[in-house]
């Protein structure tokens, strides 16, 4: 057998289920969203699910806002953690271990913990003596608690990626920069930051796409209405009203489209950043 055919055969048990589930799911979702694959009744083409009173557009806007804010927060804090880990003494090792240990904590657990921490009568409010002006993070229109949950979890992920990509080079280059007169702040801005940029870009893209499609935090920590894409899709999908199905599928596909668009734009941007590689 030709080596290529042999290799393809070895890859097949992994490739086939992925390809089948992926295409099957997307095609079925598309057909259902257009009314062509109803659970009961006759197929009838309709685009009604795609323009339901601008609700889909609103949900998309909210999802993009949550994902963008979470990405910015994760990238900034993740970079700070990585910079601290790479340039400090013993305490940095402890921080690195703690940060890495928080990566496998499920988002559901993190969302529950954020609820206990940030709600009106939560731990933080109690620490500050229950001030009347405590911001409505949980259930508020700003999705503050959900964004903080994503930021908390994903900053640890970003830090892990950054430390992994820079561990070998950062030490030597920072020392060289110091002997050339760069202060601690200058080393961070002119050495570590540009060094981190490619990995920072990739991890930002991963965080954006992930938070865009993540259900648990906005569901537990967000307001009942309006809803971001995942919450709306899951609610409509579980609705007793079977006519809600096409709208659920349209919502799900909207999140796929936004995610793919973000990946396309991100890869274009990253290619420019990586020019010097």
């Amino acid at each position, binding site marked *: 057998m030709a080596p290529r055919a042999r290799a393809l055969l070895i890859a097949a048990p992994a490739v086939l289920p992925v390809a089948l589930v992926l295409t099957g799911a997307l095609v079925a979702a598309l057909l259902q969203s257009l009314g062509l694959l109803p659970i009961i009744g006759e197929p009838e083409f309709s685009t009604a699910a795609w323009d339901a009173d601008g609700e889909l557009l609103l949900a998309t806007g909210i999802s993009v806002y949550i994902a963008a804010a979470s990405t910015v927060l994760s990238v900034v804090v993740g970079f700070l953690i990585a910079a601290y880990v790479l340039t400090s003494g013993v305490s940095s090792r402890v921080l690195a271990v703690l940060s890495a240990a928080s990566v496998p904590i499920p988002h559901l657990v993190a969302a529950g913990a954020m609820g206990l921490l940030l709600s009106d009568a939560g731990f933080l409010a109690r620490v500050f003596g229950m001030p009347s002006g405590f911001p409505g993070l949980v259930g508020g229109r700003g999705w503050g608690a959900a964004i903080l949950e994503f930021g908390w979890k994903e900053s640890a992920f970003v830090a892990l990626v950054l430390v992994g990509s820079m561990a070998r*080079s950062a030490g*030597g*280059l920072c*020392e*060289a*920069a*110091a*002997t*050339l*007169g*760069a*202060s601690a702040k*200058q080393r961070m801005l*002119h*050495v570590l930051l*540009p*060094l981190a*940029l490619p990995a920072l870009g990739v991890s930002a893209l991963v965080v954006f796409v992930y938070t865009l499609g993540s259900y648990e935090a906005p569901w537990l920590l967000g307001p009942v209405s309006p809803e971001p894409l995942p919450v709306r899709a899951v609610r409509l999908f579980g609705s007793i009203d079977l006519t809600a199905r096409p709208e659920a599928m349209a919502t799900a596909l909207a999140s796929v489209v936004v995610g793919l668009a973000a990946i396309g734009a991100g890869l274009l941007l990253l290619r420019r950043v990586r020019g*010097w*590689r």
Partner: protein
Amino acid sequence: MSSSLTFDRVSRMFGQSEVLSDVSLTVPARSLVALLGASGSGKSTLLRIASGLDAPSSGSVLVDGQDASAVPAENRGIAVVFQKPLLFPHLTVVDNVAFPARMAGVTRREARSQALEFLDLVQLGGFARRMPGQLSGGQEQRVSLARALAAQPRILLLDEPFSSLDSRLTDDMYELVGKIRAELEPTIVLVTHDRREASVLADTIAVLDEGTILQHGPVPELHYQPATRAVNRILGGLNEVPGHAAGGFHTSVLGRVRVQPGVPDGPALLVVRQEALRLIRNDDGGTSSGDEAPTGVVTEVKSMGAHVLVRVRVESAPGSGSTAVESIAVELAGAPALRAGDRVGVSLAGGQGWVVRA
């Protein structure tokens, strides 16, 4: 702008092990001192302490006589060229060299024009717009040197900067160091494990072994008047002939040799460089003087390229009352027609010897 550098009783502990103990050394302004030692001798640690990248456990570092211990690395005015070039991968060659000026707040334009001058100094003016990844190893190290010089340091530290280059490139680099010294007169400390490199470049060599300085002196002194056996070995000396010192003379299989004054009577090792010995063919008709040269049998002839290393088993002169036998190494130029088993005489050029404690 060049400053002197002084280590005053510097010690450094890593956990329980002492990497440097009580090191004192002065590097005069505008001189080049080589720190010579094997890996693990503490020489790189000493350099890191000088640059401020590491702090001594006790003792202090003085720049122009002033304690620099509290000054962080970025304000010391001490630049380092490391073994690896450590060029910033996100900056062009010229921006790497412009880096120190940019950090000091100089405008980009001004910093670049200064950087170009330093690139010209290392003969890489044409490579300014390249990325570090597009250079060869030797070029990268030149850029690294230019970048360190662009910081206009009071002292320049070189931490085995040429050890990963091939020998032709290192010779070019030695020439470059000479040129830089002539033009800019920086104070330089060079860390190296290569005694040839130390000898070629340095005014004085400090020999470091197991965290202490064994000897610091001019290059010839280290070779011909080593303070201890260890220094002799580190400088590549092969002969330590056991014998007895008495009244300013040393007696051994090599006969009675006048040695340096002030040697106490008792057992002592005669240190003779293999390059300072000559061989006399016995069939040449003997020596002219009445002083009979010690003789021996050739045991090995080893080629070292243009030179040959000959090992001779030398026995005590008959009638000396001793039956000692020593293997003596002699380095000769050319390709002498010698074979194992040949009988030869060994003579010491100059007739002056140097002994160290046994």
